[in-house]
């Protein structure tokens, strides 16, 4: 029943897409500046239907309708309702449906919110967006259909990977998809703008809010994924340079570059083609990321079952996108003459873009290099954190300094104010860093540079803030985002430098001492939960220096469906530090292996990212209010 409803809606949506393309194409030839009503209506119906379709799938998950293959494979009647719902997008088929929802809704919203732009441009954007929608709908219908039915209906489902039963992970994909898929709308707009030669400044106002929205959600999605990895994967890190994590980072770099170069385009009508290229590669990178994850040619913690035909389809789609973009770009490209002054804001924003491109290329190479060596030389290699850390971190130092100075530089003029002030701030940063060195602990030269440059960015952004308040000329959004980015790098640096990690085998009643801490395993409890059993350890951690006592309760969980053992970290967070403890059993012995970590300022890393995003949203609200 649900299967029929879902399938019918999918077919109708595909038909609607074709109709919209047809009508829009017909309407293109009419030479007034009005888009016919039918197109709005069809777009609205299309968005509504797709949402209904998604709710149908959610309903199937809630009532555990195992006649649907997707539900059977990814759900279980014993599972809590929240995770049944999250299961809808926790699998390949369902998440593709989420893709189409975002494509469709963005398409509709773009249509109704850009009424001041030329009709041809809007219609063409709509047509291209609908071609994308159609492509994904066909993919869903003929390859990855969430509504495929199964007969006879199994009595019980196969369950969901217990590691995926986590609130952070339930909201991680939707957030990330708004970012990933949201970039489709400015891909379509960029192509449309190339075709109709819509290269005026006003083009930027048609896309800038969409870039902001996708950037904010992409950042949040990356943050939530990283929080999940920290809590769930049990080794205390929050970024692993895993290929799939990288796949979400690649479009982020492109979006960040785009966000900044749009400012120049809007203000000075420069960089048009560069903006277009960034619009194109953002979405191309999003689809490339999807291809890498879903085709199974990369292996990572994101274990989606791999099916080569999926890969072929996405690859075909990707190639079409890439080659048509390149073709159009070559055809329309005109050499732009920049004539920038060395010390103007334009130059600094261009420098920001170079950095972003540098990071993008580094991460892209690291991610796809193993695929190349494997395919071309049969040589299997893995590119890990040492590569990224060695290349990215030293460059961050210079990047932060440009980031601190850039916003204060004037447009057009070759003038640089306040050099003295910057020297003072730099001196202040060096002194602060020296204080940390002297009073707490010494660290490597590179770490010194990173801490100093992060402090430099923070102080100069704050100083900007203060003087802006005085002059009442206030770019709060930028100041919040930039200051928070400085804090982010600072906290990551301090966290890295001051972490403590210890590994012990311990049995009940035993105490281990190290530095000024002691850890005691007080007791073990066995508890039954609805879909798993857990061995819960109670450990007391004493800081003998400050007499602070903490009880941590790491768990070993035994899930029923599928039968899996997972180790749950116990984490005590406060404003200064996290205690992070995992426990695993040692067969046929009373000993348990515990891994204790002290991670300073952890919570501030998350807060910094939230604040970076807050800056983005603030800018969005301002834009909305202004327009």
């Amino acid at each position: 029943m649900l299967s029929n409803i879902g399938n019918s809606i999918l077919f109708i949506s595909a038909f609607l897409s074709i109709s919209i393309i047809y009508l829009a194409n017909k309407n293109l030839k009419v030479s007034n500046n009005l888009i016919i009503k039918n197109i709005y209506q069809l777009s609205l119906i299309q968005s509504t239907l797709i949402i209904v379709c998604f709710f149908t799938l959610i309903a199937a998950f809630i009532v555990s309708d195992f006649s649907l293959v997707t539900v059977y494979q990814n759900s279980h009647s014993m599972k809590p309702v929240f995770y049944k719902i999250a299961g809808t997008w926790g699998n390949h088929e369902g998440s593709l449906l989420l893709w189409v929802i975002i494509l469709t809704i963005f398409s509709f919203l773009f249509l109704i919110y850009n009424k001041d732009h030329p009709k041809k441009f809007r219609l063409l954007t709509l047509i291209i967006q609908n071609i994308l929608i159609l492509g994904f709908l066909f993919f869903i219908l003929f390859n990855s259909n969430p509504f495929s039915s199964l007969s006879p209906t199994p009595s019980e489902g196969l369950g969901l990977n217990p590691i995926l039963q986590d609130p952070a992970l339930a909201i991680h994909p939707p957030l990330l998809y708004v970012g990933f898929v949201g970039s489709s709308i400015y891909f379509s707009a960029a192509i449309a703008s190339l075709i109709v030669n819509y290269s005026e400044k006003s083009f930027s106002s048609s896309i800038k809010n969409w870039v902001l929205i996708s950037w904010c959600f992409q950042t949040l999605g990356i943050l939530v994924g990283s929080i999940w990895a920290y809590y769930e994967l049990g080794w205390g890190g929050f970024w692993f340079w895993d290929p799939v994590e990288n796949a979400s980072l690649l479009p982020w770099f492109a979006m960040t570059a785009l966000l900044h170069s749009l400012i120049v385009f809007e203000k000075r009508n420069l960089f048009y083609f560069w903006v277009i290229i960034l619009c194109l590669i953002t979405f191309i990178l999003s689809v490339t990321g999807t291809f890498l994850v879903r085709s199974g040619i990369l292996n990572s913690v994101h274990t989606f079952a791999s099916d080569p035909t999926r890969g072929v389809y996405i690859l075909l789609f990707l190639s079409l996108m890439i080659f048509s973009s390149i073709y159009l770009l070559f055809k329309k490209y005109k050499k732009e003459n920049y004539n920038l002054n060395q010390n103007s804001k334009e130059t600094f924003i261009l420098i920001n873009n170079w950095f972003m491109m540098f990071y993008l290329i580094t991460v892209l190479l690291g991610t796809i290099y193993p695929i190349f060596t494997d395919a071309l030389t049969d040589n299997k290699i893995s590119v890990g954190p040492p590569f990224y850390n060695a290349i990215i971190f030293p460059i961050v130092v210079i990047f932060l300094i440009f980031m601190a100075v850039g916003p204060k530089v004037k447009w057009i003029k070759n003038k640089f104010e306040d050099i003295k002030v910057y020297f003072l701030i730099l001196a202040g940063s060096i002194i602060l860093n020296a204080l940390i060195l002297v009073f707490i602990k010494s660290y490597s030269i590179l770490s010194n540079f990173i801490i100093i440059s992060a402090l430099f960015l923070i102080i100069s952004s704050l100083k900007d803030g203060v003087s802006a308040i005085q002059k009442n000329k206030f770019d709060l959004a930028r100041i919040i985002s930039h200051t928070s980015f400085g804090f982010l790098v600072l906290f990551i640096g301090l966290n890295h430098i001051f972490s403590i990690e210890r590994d012990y085998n311990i049995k009940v009643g035993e105490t281990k001492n190290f530095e000024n801490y002691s850890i005691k395993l007080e007791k073990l409890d066995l508890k039954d939960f609805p879909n798993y059993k857990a061995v819960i350890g109670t450990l007391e951690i004493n800081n003998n220096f400050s007499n602070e006592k903490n009880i941590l309760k790491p768990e070993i969980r035994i899930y029923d469906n599928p039968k899996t053992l997972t180790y749950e970290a116990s984490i005590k967070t406060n404003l200064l530090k996290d205690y992070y403890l995992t426990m695993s059993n040692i067969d046929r012995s009373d000993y348990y292996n515990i891994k204790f970590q002290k991670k300073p300022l952890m919570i501030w890393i998350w807060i910094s990212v939230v604040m970076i995003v807050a800056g983005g949203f603030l800018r969005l609200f301002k834009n909305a209010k202004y327009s």
Partner: protein
Amino acid sequence: MRNTVKIIIFVIFFFVISVFYISLTRDVNYNTSSLINKEVPQFKIAYFDKNEFYTKQDLIKNNYTLINFWASWCGPCRVEHPVLMKLSAENNLDILGVNFKDKKELARKFLKDLGNPYNSLLKDVEGKQSVIFGIYGIPESVIINNKNTIIKKFVGPLSLDDYKEIKEMIK
């Protein structure tokens, strides 16, 4: 000049997509089934305690070799350790332990606490050599005969059933 740039860009993208396509049609890196009944590839893994290397040629000396990839930080490795201890009593089988991305002292302590089932102990600090055997997560084990053919690969901790199966294999 502009045309050359265009052609180069086009070729680069074409190349990337072709490589993606080739990768799609190939066996997945860590698909264990592709390794079975194949000859062991060339490898060179350092000994844990001395400055020498264990290579493919050393394998021929044994009737059967079980290569076990483990680390002290790996919980399931502790679970399978008793099975390895039991296997170490088998005469027909040499057990080769590859200590995977681990710290030396911790690895030593692990073996001191739980016993050392290995005839030879090697280390793969960066995890690069293990990739040859398609090792992704540990513990994983590979069993090889004296013709250097991989007979079976075990992903995840060895169980008592695996123990019986291995015993049967090396009879």
